[in-house]
């Protein structure tokens, strides 16, 4: 076969020499290599001016272009995805919060393994789904970069192995010579921890465990010991008390078990068409507390008179029921006491008298009153004691004496900070430093831990296993929701205190299995619901709570020992109390409480519900006492006078702020401030406030939070106070609508009258006249209703909103400039002595009337709270004025904010009648002036909710009605192919409300709870609806169970006369 020749083209066929030559060349054309390399300029000339400029231009441009690029934050996917984690989907774990003061059963929301939000656990029989501001904020305390990352020996980081060895050697040596070992802790309600401590004591028999609470209830327990032979604190049932009398007990915000009390209290405070009865709440107190602000009748009394009020109330009741009376001294409020006594006697067994004092004598007589009223077994449950406050003041003072006498060889402090909290007279730090071996479990080098030889940092509660027994029948579990933040290999890591103790005892078990064993042996046996332990354990862990069966079915019998109580002696001691010109009552604030979370910026920025002041504590004084001496801070003045407060020779300088309703001749100061070693916050902002724990004293063996003789002198200096609300009265406006129960019963619409307008077709409701088209009613339309009768103003929702929506912390200076970022605020108004009716009666002109209205009633104002967030107006003034349509209306009735589109003209905020819009004046996430903002801390950033964008400088923001939750709820419904269930979607504020004051749901669904509520409840109203803005958020009129409304103001005048 002949080989066929194929050719590519005619050139190849012809195959002339030219072609051959070309085919051999690598390049078709000559490359001018020679020419290029031969250029002599290359060798001799170097870079000429033009080239230089070209290169310069290029490199500058290239460099600046490269610099323009935004830094890239890499999101690294899971290499091996944990089975239970789906990125973008939250996991919820039941757990428990207990810090020695507050207890709540909680649910922890985690995203990609990070806890980001705390919510109340509705399965708990104690907290019933409620939470408070401190618990809401506790998730941020987890990501606190002030925590220490490993054990320290004398202030230097060490290794757990070394620390354990040294401590074991030391403890062994002490035990050998019979030296005393002490464990000092706050109240421990963990049965397993107590069991470990018991084992510890067994190993080191010279050990004693002392519980000490910074804010102590020891007096109550001791009084109960005298009355009933049991040193316990009972459970209180405010939901069964139709008449509540509180003597200086802030039971809605701080006292004993405030979440539980608020939940119970709110049940009898709600009125509706079905139920038009309300409990009646009397409050005798010196400071205006949150509870006092919610009382139907509040009677300001001097601190020295509080005991006498109790005695006189006892006598009034005793007289009526024929019992022996006690010696008493007359009081100006005796007529009111008589009235209170009468009402209490009418509601025997359905009433409750509580007292916030830690004085045994006070509590004894209160016990006597409740005894006479037959409240034990009904509203007070001795058979189900509340274990959350077991601190023993006398044991603590004994310990200090022992330490001072150098009789203690080792002390272990756990969850307590006595160097900061102990009364100055005890000189705790001096005694403490006499102990040779000081071990602390503190998670940071706090005031007490800084004295310690060894700090063995405990886990944060969200990293820990634990169990709690808050009341006799209720148990709950805490489980870790994140691996310890500080762990090997980067850090030595923190270690659960119980594990440390187990190590030192030589028990090889870890705390988790220890709890399990302990529950198997004790708790499991107490219940009958489950027969298999694993089932019981798994369910308890899943639910977070467990209940054991009560052994004694009834507790009414537990009132033995009544006869043995020496009331006469107690009354005599009370009558001997002498007052003075100024008396001091120390109190806790809703945010900071006893001060253990003082390093939490969310709590520091939470306004006090009453004064609305952030980032500070101060002296509260009656404006009547301040007049002529100190700045009255009227007319939106932020300047306050500084005063020197002297107690027992200790002087502190603090601002004094006018507090309407503060009993004359008394002052109040909040505890929990002035922490020097709380963490980095105090270094970033300066020490926040002043520590007044040194003012506490030991009286009659219990801690006293009152001082009967305090000297106050003008320091002749001024300072600025960071209040979020600096005008305090309603100015006669119907922003808050209210009525009284009697009127409400007759006419449910009382106090809720709409603005009417004359039209050609007669009188019409102003809100019904409209220039605009109604929005189409398609699909869902969200609405919110807030019951002003239920809202107690506690601020839990404010912190919850902050956590849910990544709201920035702006600090004291910015709050002073009215630039706080809270999407949700609680407005607090005081009543004024002037009203339109009074002005009409006195024939006062408008100008002087309004001038008078600016001042709240100094002596005893009525108080009202009103949560305000974006009202999501359907005809929103903000939407029409935005030039770039950055704020618009959603088809679901929400007013939406498009941050990306916002240019920041701020016109929307000006035109908002509610002033709910918040502007990012600075870059709060990068500007070093705001270093305390959690977003500026590598750890703090972990608390951010990934579903909500962090807003940049120059954009407007505001309440979105938790649109991310709405979206999640809708998607869930879609995935499960079922219609959205009413109540499935809860906004953050609604969920955290301990009194269920907030309702949220679909307005297009006629059967939704909110639709029904709006239809059926005549109290429903919209703020400023006469503007035609058609808000989506509505309010329910406040109903007071008292004789006059604010508008009439007569009662106020009467009390004034009495006081004068």
């Amino acid at each position, binding site marked *: 076969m002949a080989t066929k020749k194929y050719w590519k083209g005619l050139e190849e066929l012809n195959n002339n020499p030219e072609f051959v030559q070309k085919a051999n060349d690598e390049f078709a054309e000559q490359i001018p290599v020679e020419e290029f390399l031969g250029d002599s300029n290359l060798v001799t000339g170097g870079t000429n001016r033009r080239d230089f400029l070209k290169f310069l231009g290029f490199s500058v441009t290239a460099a600046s272009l490269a610099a323009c690029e935004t830094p890239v934050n890499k999101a690294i996917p899971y290499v091996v995805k944990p089975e239970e984690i789906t990125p973008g989907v939250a996991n919820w774990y039941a757990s428990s919060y207990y810090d020695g003061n507050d207890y709540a059963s909680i649910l922890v929301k985690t995203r990609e393994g990070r806890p980001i939000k705390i919510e109340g656990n509705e399965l708990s029989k104690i907290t019933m789904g409620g939470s408070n501001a401190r618990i809401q904020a506790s998730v941020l305390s987890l990501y606190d970069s002030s925590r220490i990352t490993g054990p320290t020996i004398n202030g230097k980081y060490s290794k757990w192995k070394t620390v354990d060895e040294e401590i074991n050697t030391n403890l062994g040596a002490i035990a050998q010579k019979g030296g005393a070992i002490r464990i000092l802790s706050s109240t421990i309600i963990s049965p397993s921890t107590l069991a470990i401590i018991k084992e510890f004591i067994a190993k080191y028999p010279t050990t004693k465990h002392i519980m000490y609470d910074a804010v102590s209830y020891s007096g109550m327990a001791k009084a109960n010991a005298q009355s009933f032979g049991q040193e316990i604190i009972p459970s209180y049932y405010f939901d069964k008390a139709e008449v509540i009398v509180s003597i200086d007990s802030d039971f809605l915000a701080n006292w004993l078990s405030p979440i539980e009390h608020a939940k119970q209290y709110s049940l009898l405070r709600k009125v509706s068409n079905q139920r038009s009865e309300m409990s009646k709440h009397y409050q005798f107190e010196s400071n205006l507390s949150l509870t006092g602000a919610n009382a139907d009748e509040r009677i300001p009394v001097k601190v020295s008179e509080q005991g006498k009020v109790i005695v006189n109330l006892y006598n009034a009741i005793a007289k009526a029921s024929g019992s022996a009376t006690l010696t008493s001294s007359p009081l100006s409020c005796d007529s009111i006491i008589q009235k209170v006594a009468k009402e209490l006697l009418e509601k025997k067994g359905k009433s409750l008298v509580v007292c916030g004092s830690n004085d045994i004598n006070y509590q004894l007589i209160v016990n006597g009153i409740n005894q006479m009223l037959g409240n034990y077994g009904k509203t007070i449950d001795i058979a189900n004691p509340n274990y959350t406050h077991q601190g023993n003041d006398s044991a603590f003072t004994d310990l200090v004496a022992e330490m001072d006498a150098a009789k203690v060889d080792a002390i272990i402090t756990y969850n307590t900070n006595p160097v900061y909290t102990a009364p100055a007279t005890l000189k705790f730090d001096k005694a403490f430093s006499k102990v040779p071996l000081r071990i602390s479990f503190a998670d940071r080098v706090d005031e007490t831990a800084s004295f310690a030889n060894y700090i063995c940092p405990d886990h944060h509660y969200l990293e820990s296993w634990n169990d709690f027994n808050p009341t006799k029948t209720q148990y709950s579990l805490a489980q870790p929701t994140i691996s310890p933040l500080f762990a090997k290999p980067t850090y030595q890591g923190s270690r659960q205190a119980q594990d440390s103790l187990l190590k030192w005892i030589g028990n090889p078990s870890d705390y988790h299995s220890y709890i399990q064993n302990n529950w198997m042996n004790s708790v499991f046996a107490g219940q009958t619901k489950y027969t298999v332990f694993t089932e019981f354990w798994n369910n308890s862990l899943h639910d977070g709570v467990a209940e054991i069966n009560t052994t004694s079915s009834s507790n009414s019998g537990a009132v033995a020992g009544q006869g043995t109580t020496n009331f006469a002696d107690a009354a005599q001691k009370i009558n001997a109390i002498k007052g003075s010109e100024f008396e001091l009552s120390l109190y806790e604030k809703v945010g900071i409480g006893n001060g253990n979370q003082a390093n939490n910026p969310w709590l520091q920025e939470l306004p006090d519900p009453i004064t609305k002041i952030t980032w500070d504590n101060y002296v509260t004084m009656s404006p009547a006492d301040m007049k002529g001496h100190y700045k009255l801070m009227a007319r939106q003045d932020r300047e306050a006078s500084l005063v020197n407060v002297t107690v027992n020779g200790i002087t502190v300088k603090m601002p004094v702020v006018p507090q309407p309703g503060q009993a004359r001749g008394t002052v109040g100061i909040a505890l929990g401030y002035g922490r020097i070693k709380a963490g980095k916050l105090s270094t970033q902002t300066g020490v926040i406030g002043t520590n007044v724990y040194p003012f506490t004293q030991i009286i009659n063996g219990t801690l006293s939070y009152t001082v009967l003789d305090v000297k106050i002198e003008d320091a002749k200096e001024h300072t600025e106070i960071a209040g979020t609300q600096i005008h305090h009265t309603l100015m006669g406006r119907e*922003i808050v609508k209210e009525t009284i129960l009697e009127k409400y019963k007759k006419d449910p619409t009382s106090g809720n009258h709409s603005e009417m307008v004359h039209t050609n077709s007669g009188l019409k409701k102003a809100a019904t006249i409209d220039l605009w088209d109604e929005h189409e009613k398609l699909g869902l339309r969200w609405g919110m209703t807030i019951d002003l009768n239920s809202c107690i103003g506690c601020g839990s929702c404010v912190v919850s909103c902050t956590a849910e929506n990544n709201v920035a912390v702006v600090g004291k200076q910015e709050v002073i400039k009215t630039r*706080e970022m809270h999407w949700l605020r609680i407005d607090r108004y005081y009543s004024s002595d002037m009203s339109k009716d009074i002005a009409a009666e006195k024939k006062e002109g408008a*100008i002087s009337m*309004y001038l008078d209205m600016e001042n709240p009633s100094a002596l005893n104002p009525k108080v009202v709270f009103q949560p305000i967030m974006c009202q999501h107006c359907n005809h929103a003034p903000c939407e029409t*004025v935005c030039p770039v349509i950055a704020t618009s209306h959603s088809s679901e009735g929400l007013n939406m904010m498009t941050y990306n589109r916002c240019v920041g003209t*701020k016109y929307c905020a000006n035109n908002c*009648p509610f002033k709910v819009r918040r502007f990012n004046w600075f870059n709060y996430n990068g500007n070093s002036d705001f270093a305390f903002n959690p977003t500026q801390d590598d750890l703090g950033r972990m608390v951010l909710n990934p579903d909500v964008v962090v807003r940049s400088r120059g954009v407007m923001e505001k309440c979105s009605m938790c649109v991310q939750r709405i979206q999640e709820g809708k998607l869930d419904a879609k995935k499960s192919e079922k219609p959205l269930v009413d109540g499935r979607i809860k906004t953050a504020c609604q969920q955290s409300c301990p009194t269920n004051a907030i309702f949220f749901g679909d307005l297009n669904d006629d059967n939704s709870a909110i639709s029904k509520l709006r239809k059926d409840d005549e109290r429903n109203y919209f703020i400023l609806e006469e503007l035609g803005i058609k808000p989506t958020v509505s309010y329910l009129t406040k109903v007071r169970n008292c004789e006059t409304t604010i508008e009439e103001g007569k009662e106020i005048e009467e009390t004034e006369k009495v006081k004068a």
Partner: protein
Amino acid sequence: MQHESEIRVPLILGNKSYHQITEDIVRPIEGKATKYWYMLFTISIICFCWGIACLSYTIGVGIGAWGNNNGVDWAWDITNFVWWIGIGHAGTLISAVLLLFRQKWRLAINRSAEAMTIFAVMCAAIFVLLHTGRPWLDYWLFPLPNTFGSLWINFNSPLVWDVFAVSTYFSVSLVFWYTGLVPDFAMIRDRAVKPFAKKMYSLLSMGWGGSARHWSRFEELSLVLAGLATPLVFSVHSIVSMDFATAVLPGWHATIFPPYFVAGAVFSGFAMVQTLLLMMRKIYNLENYITKKHIEYMNIVIIITGSIVGVAYLTELFISWYSGVEYEQYAFINRATGPYWWAYACMMTCNVVSPQLFWSKKLRTSLTFTFIMSIIVNIGMWFERFVIIVPTLCRTYLPSTWNMYHPTFVDIGIFTGTIGMFFTFFLLFTRYFPVIAQAELKTIVKSSSEGYRNKAKHNTHH
């Protein structure tokens, strides 16, 4: 040609010839700057630089550097914006409205009044551009085609109207001003000896030859531009006032705002013209051109517009009472008796009471008194805008949100800076631009005709 009554004082004193006018007007340009000029220029430029520093700081950290807050979202920024825009109005009114009304006395003052307009609008623009949170995105306020999706501007928003109103106003004013300058630049070009100056003025005069055709076109264009600018005098400040009038806030939501703002703008603008001219005639010896008569005429405008403003204030008070709306009534009680009562009192005294003193001929022809009054009126008008904005926003519907506003050093710095910038530009203008529209001014010169008349009179006597 225009007939003038014998009893009227001539508009140009000193029996000037055409050549003398030319000499008088180019003297500041061709001659050396005076000591006064250098003094004023130094002060102005220092203020200007401080303003630039404060602005840079603001752009660096955010408008949190100002005293504005979450209740008072507009404060000095918008106060200053409205104030400057208002000042600008006198220039347009003088050159356009008075042109249409054939008021020849405007010829001596229109050039500098127009320059004032341009510079004042530039100052205003600084505030309106930089009061936003993210000024680098300000261009989003224009209806630009974009790649962001279906994003468009909101034609319901008065701020969008503002953007159109102010940008139109600025461009028309600039063109109008420049048109008038062309023949004068040509005159300077023809006299210039230094090559650089000659080249610059040649460029600026755009080949002006002074032919009859040029003059004809010049006149036509001026008339058309005057016609365009006249509605702008009324529209710009009406629209600016709608920023407030269309809002729901008591104290802002008022239909009286547009006319009242326009009157106020002219009022403050004339006061500013007085301030500038009284200084200028002194420094450049222009007493023969800017005469007492001019000053008096302007003072009469000030009385009239001041009185309109006063009536508007009283009408506002009456309407707030008559409305029967609680919030509306309180807004005005608050202005007068609230924490900012002093600002209201200042506004009332400066704007309503003090201009009434001009009813006295002696006072309105007194140069010193006029100068003081011109400053007082502008202080008053600044406070008017402050009173409308800040005390209103400090106390709106919910008393819980009531607060106070305190300016920071940056607020003060930027405001001082714009005043510095305004005077820097104006002083440069007086050195390089003819401050009086000499070409037009020469149309009312009667020196030669009067010379002839006088000569004739003389002859008959003999």
